């Protein structure tokens, strides 16, 4: 083929290089864009499948749990009762005072007469009568040696020749 265009009309070499670079950029950019688009679409499709699988799994699990409805109800009822029982058990009660008193009265000599016992959550007042001083010493020794009371107060101490010693002790729990 014969080039009839005069040499003066042929474009500048610099312009040709720029055009070439631009052309290459456009074509490689297009390829990159297509690759990115394919990548994104594939990633989107994979994620959609994963989501679908998870939804199906969730549905199956919900069905299974629904079939265990009575168990679930009982489980929540137990949990509810337990939380409330915990509060009830934390309430003040004379149970500990009673336990301590039972232990203490267990070591009291049979000759001692318990007249009155007043038990509350934190302490107990014990009024008793003993005929002789040796018994009194024995009782005091057992009360003092017991380690389940924080404080022991002698509230009253009386003596009557016919009945003996009348004592009131206040014992405060640990």
């Amino acid at each position, binding site marked *: 083929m014969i080039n009839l265009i005069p040499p003066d009309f042929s*474009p500048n070499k610099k*312009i040709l290089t*720029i*055009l070439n670079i*631009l*052309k290459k*950029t*456009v074509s490689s*950019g*297009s390829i990159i*864009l297509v690759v990115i*688009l394919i990548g*994104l679409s594939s*990633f989107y499709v994979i*994620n959609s499948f*994963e*989501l679908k699988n*998870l*939804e199906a*799994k*969730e549905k199956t*699990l*919900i069905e299974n*749990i*629904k079939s*265990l409805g*009575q*168990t*679930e*109800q*009982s*489980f929540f*009822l*137990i*949990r*509810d*009762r*337990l*939380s*409330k*029982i915990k*509060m*009830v*058990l934390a*309430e*003040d*009660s*004379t149970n500990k005072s*009673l*336990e301590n008193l*039972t232990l203490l*009265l267990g070591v009291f000599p049979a000759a001692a*007469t*318990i*007249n*009155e*016992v*007043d*038990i*509350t959550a934190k302490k107990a007042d014990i009024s008793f009568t003993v005929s002789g001083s040796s018994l009194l010493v024995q009782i005091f020794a057992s009360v003092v040696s017991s380690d389940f009371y924080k404080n022991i107060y002698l509230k009253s101490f009386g003596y009557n020749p016919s009945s003996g010693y009348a004592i009131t002790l206040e014992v405060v729990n640990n």
Partner: protein
Amino acid sequence: MPPAFKKFIYLALSLSCLLFVGVITLKIGWAKIAKKREEIASLQKTVKALEQKEMILGEVAGGVVKQAGLLNNALPAKNSALVTISQVKKLANEEFLVMDSLKAGAEIKKSSYSQVNISFDIEGEILVVLNFLKKLQNIAPLTNLDKVKISQSITSLAKASVTIKTYWAAYPVKLPPITEPLKDFTAEEKETIVKILSLNPPEFVELIPQENSGRQNPFE
């Protein structure tokens, strides 16, 4: 216009379009994918919680219904005064103690449960009375001793004026959502269950309906 310039404009426009399409596609595409990933992450969390829930419920399925019934004896849904009185009377009979002046107070509402005070007098040997009071802690519904005053003279038996507290609590109104995670009972909770299950439950008499006597005509 020289053909080189035309070509330059054409290429520049193509490049601009490419950049524009690329940026928009990336922005929209990435946002959609990010949303899907978020959904997947949330669903994975839910599925994990459901799997755990299914496993726990499957493990406890055998005994949990019975346990719930027994715990319900310890903390009933309705006023427990009558059942507690019946339990106290039964215990007093077993210990051969004389019971008197039985009174039940009004409902005392607490934050999440209710309480009623029951007072009574009991008469017997002092150690038997103390034993009876100790055994009161082992009855269901749950009871707490409030006040005890014991008096006795040389000639008489011990007489105890006792006030006990008994409790009940309404059932929860609704179950949490099915997708809410479930945690197994803690060691402390398991210990409480064992303790509560050892309480003496009340005995309820079930009346069996009588069969038809066979008398067809009531006027005969």
